[in-house]
């Protein structure tokens, strides 16, 4: 099992959610995050006082999937979240040791 964590532009969340739904992903977790990469931040100006805002708001999407699904998930996210401009985000893939569904106590792939 893998945990896929994708950092995306906030306005692309609906597209990503739809693309993941289309390939049969049954659950995702969404977190509002801030950060910077190559896009860097932006500047704000108030009566001549200039502030550099280093961290931009992004959305982090987490999906736990079977190994067989990983490539399709990556493909779906990449396709849906891409604008071609700097700041589209990144996808991280982690090994996932265990999954437990709290209600039933199921574990492993059954719990996904």
């Amino acid at each position: 099992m893998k945990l896929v964590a994708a950092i995306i532009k906030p306005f692309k969340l609906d597209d990503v959610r739809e693309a993941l739904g289309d390939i049969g992903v049954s659950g995702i977790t969404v977190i509002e995050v801030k950060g910077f990469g190559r896009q860097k931040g932006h500047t704000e100006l108030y009566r001549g006082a200039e502030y550099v805002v280093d961290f931009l708001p992004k959305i982090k999407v987490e999906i736990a999937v079977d190994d067989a699904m990983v490539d399709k998930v990556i493909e779906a996210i990449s396709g849906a979240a891409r604008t071609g401009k700097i700041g589209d985000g990144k996808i991280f893939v982690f090994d996932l040791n265990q999954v437990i569904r709290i209600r039933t106590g199921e574990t492993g792939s059954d719990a996904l």
Partner: protein
Amino acid sequence: MYSLQPRRLATHALAVLSLLLPALALADEPPTLSSGDTAWMLTATALVLFMTIPGLALFYAGLVRSKNVLSVLMQCFAITGLITLIWAVYGYSLAFTDGGAMNDYIGSLDKAFLSGVTVDALSGTIPDSLFMTFQMTFAIITPALIVGAFAERMKFSAMLIFMALWVTLVYIPIAHWVWGGGWVGAMGALDFAGGTVVHINAGVAALMAALMLGRRKGYPTTAMPPHNLSFTVIGASMLWVGWFGFNAGSELAADGTAAMAMTVTQLSTAAAALTWMFAEWIEHGKPSVLGIATGAVAGLVAITPASGTAGPMGAIAIGFAGSLLAYFASTKVKKWLGYDDSLDVWGVHGVAGIVGAILTGVFAAPVLGGAGLADGVDGIGGQVWIQLVSVAATLVYGGLVSLALLFLIKVTIGLRVTEEQETEGLDLALHDERGYII
């Protein structure tokens, strides 16, 4: 049994005579109440109070950080209450009665505790109570303007004491000098609605407060952006609307001068708002909301002294110049000199106030569309010189007394909150409340 003794008779006769004398003296033109003037002045008075609460309070509240939003709203509200009482007890009397031998500098205590300000008492063609309340709203907004300079770091108790002393020792005398029969008005200075009394006065006190309190912790390296510019724009809009009461109301009558005051106020403000917007657009590539709102306030300030004398085209010139110089002072000079006039009270009210006061002397000239120079003043140069003297007197007297008062409070109870309180935010530290519980 009641019989008139000769002595008592004489006393009675004197009493009757003394009652008749003022009436006889004014027999040509008995003062009568004009319901038109009174109706307008009731409205104007409400508009000017509306400028402070909620107008100015919101304008400032949006500019501070969210942890201090309540503190500035509270300061404006508390000042409104405090000054109202001071004005009733002795403020109105000292500012607007004849001070006899001292009349050049201060009035008397004849109307202390509003003695004589009765239902029937008149001031010109409006009730004395109305004139008193109208002037009260000016006395309220002036100290409230100063709040912007020491926002986010002053002790509430020190603020109250400073404001009580400042209104007593600075505002009241200067209001008397200019409007109450004192030397500045007698000299022929033109200040229709309070360029010197209100704006330069508040501006220089604000600068002194910013210097005496010192910078906010972290200024200018830490980002301190306004927490809610929507509040600020709403507040600036309320100021714009309320200012018609301020300027057109200063005519104290519903007549052509009041209508022209309204017209020139609108024109100056429009010109000033766009001036700041374009200046920023040209310099930084984008027009800003805070810029256009600040420019509007600068235009309102600049036209204030001129609103009874300038013509429409003169008003546009005054708005343009006031805004441009306020822009320069607030965005450049402040940065170069490094003082933390947090919400630009000096930069906007002080600087645009000075520009307006000087240009009042220029655009009052009939040849430039104005209503005329002060009686006995020879030419634009002479009027501008008188304007400069009134500006300098306000700057020197207001600045020095403000500095002395601030110093006195600093060495007694202290001016600033502790560093810990400042970091926590004044809302929680001083009021045990939060502006946003979400």
